[in-house]
């Protein structure tokens, strides 16, 4: 199993959610996050004083999938999240040892 984590622009959430649902993902976790990549946030001006705001609002999505689905799911996710402008975000995956459905105690792929 793999844990796919995506940090994306907040307004792309609906697109990404729809794309993941049509791909067949049954569940996901969404958290509000903030951070920056190469673009380093933005600048605000107050009476001529400039402030650099490093941390910009982001959405973090986490999905557990079977190994075979991981690559394709990442492609689907990236396609849905992409706007082509700076700050689109990042997606990565890491291996997962165990997953358990709390209600039934099922383990492994059955728990997804």
């Amino acid at each position, binding site marked *: 199993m793999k844990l796919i984590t995506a940090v994306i622009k907040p307004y792309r959430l609906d697109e990404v959610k729809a794309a993941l649902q049509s791909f067949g993902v049954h569940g996901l*976790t969404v958290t509000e996050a903030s951070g920056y990549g190469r673009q380093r946030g933005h600048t605000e*001006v*107050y*009476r*001529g*004083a400039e402030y650099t*705001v490093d941390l910009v609002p982001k959405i973090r999505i*986490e999905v557990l999938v079977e190994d075979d689905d991981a690559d394709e799911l990442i492609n689907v996710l990236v396609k849905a999240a992409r706007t082509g402008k700076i700050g689109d975000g990042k997606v990565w995956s890491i291996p997962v040892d165990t997953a*358990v459905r709390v209600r039934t105690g099922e383990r492994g792929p059955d728990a997804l």
Partner: protein
Amino acid sequence: MPDGFSAGDTAFVLISAALVMVMTPGLAFFYGGMVRAKSTLNMLAMSFLSLGIVSVLWVLYGYSLSFGPDAGAGLIGNLDFLGMRGIGLNDLTGSIPVTAFSAFQLMFAIITPALISGAIADRAKFAAWGLFVALWVTIVYFPVAHWVFFVDGGNGGWLGDRNGVIDFAGGTAVHINAGVAGLALCLVLGKRVGFKKDPMRPHSLPLVMLGSGLLWFGWFGFNAGSALAANGVAAMAVVNTQVATAAALVGWLIFEKLKHGAFTTLGAASGAVAGLVAITPACGSVSPLGAVAIGLIAGAVCAAAVSLKYRFGFDDSLDVVGVHAVGGAIGSLLIGLFATGGVGQTAKGLFYGGGLDQLGKQAMGVAVVAVYSFVLSWLLAKAIDKTVGFRVAEDVEVAGIDQAEHAESAYDFSAVGAGLARALLAPAASAPATAEPVATRTAEKAAEKTEVDA
């Protein structure tokens, strides 16, 4: 009522007094939105404290010192009206009861020290501030109001009545006076922790816009009410106030777009206030076209002036100097150029064939009030600092002055805070096994956030 009484004038001045009163809460919000969330209440409270202290002192001796019969050379009123004694219901100032005039002038005395508070945002002990307000109005505002506003047929205040300095509604007595006192005070108190290093951006621009809107609204009472009659001069003052403010708003925005690349809402609000300040002394002596010129000049020059604090390294937190001292001086001096001689006063400015005479008088008024206010304010602040201490401890300032001085906070972030605290205290106990990575991350994020906040 006695001969000469006008019900229309009285109604107008009483309503104007109420309009000027609302400027102080307006100012509180204007300033309150510009500070960081952790010290909003203190900013609001400093203005409200002025409402409390000055109103009481006004009745005790303020009115008498400002508008009592002259005690000599036009420098200060005598003590005939101590405790407002001897003022009957039928006594008139012009065509309105003395009490109506007194109520109107009281509102000026309240907002002037409140204006100063913006220079020392986030770092003054509240009790020391209260002491400063009480002493400052006594030794600075009441005398200066006498110099500028007390009219007694040539035997009144030495600047206005005896030497012909025009200050219709308080460019010198209110704005230069407060602006320069703000400079003195921020020099004595020193810079905020993190000045020029940490971002100290306004926590609520909507509050700033609300406050500046209330100021603009109340300012019609401030300026038009100063005619002390519901007449043509008052009407002209309303028009001049509106167009000068509008022009300054536009002037500030244009300057900003050219210099910094964006039209900011804080710039619009600040420009409006700069225009209001600049037209205050002039609104009873210039034409609407002159008012537009004064507004445009004030908007652009004040926008440039607010950066002075970075160049010279004094922490005038909310630009009291850049907006009130500079704006007040611009308005006062431009009377010397734009006074038409046909609105409320007969004095003519340079552009209307009056030569340089009036400009010289205006410059004297500006200089005298600026020097007097700076010296006395500095001495007063220094004396308070040496005795009771004027500035809060550094840890109090960093944590936010609201908690330490008022035992309150402006905003309740506890829903988030409580969740983070729980996650921090017992991540394993409160979270099921599968969710542990998430819980741990939350705890880490909380820990990071706490570090940043600290």
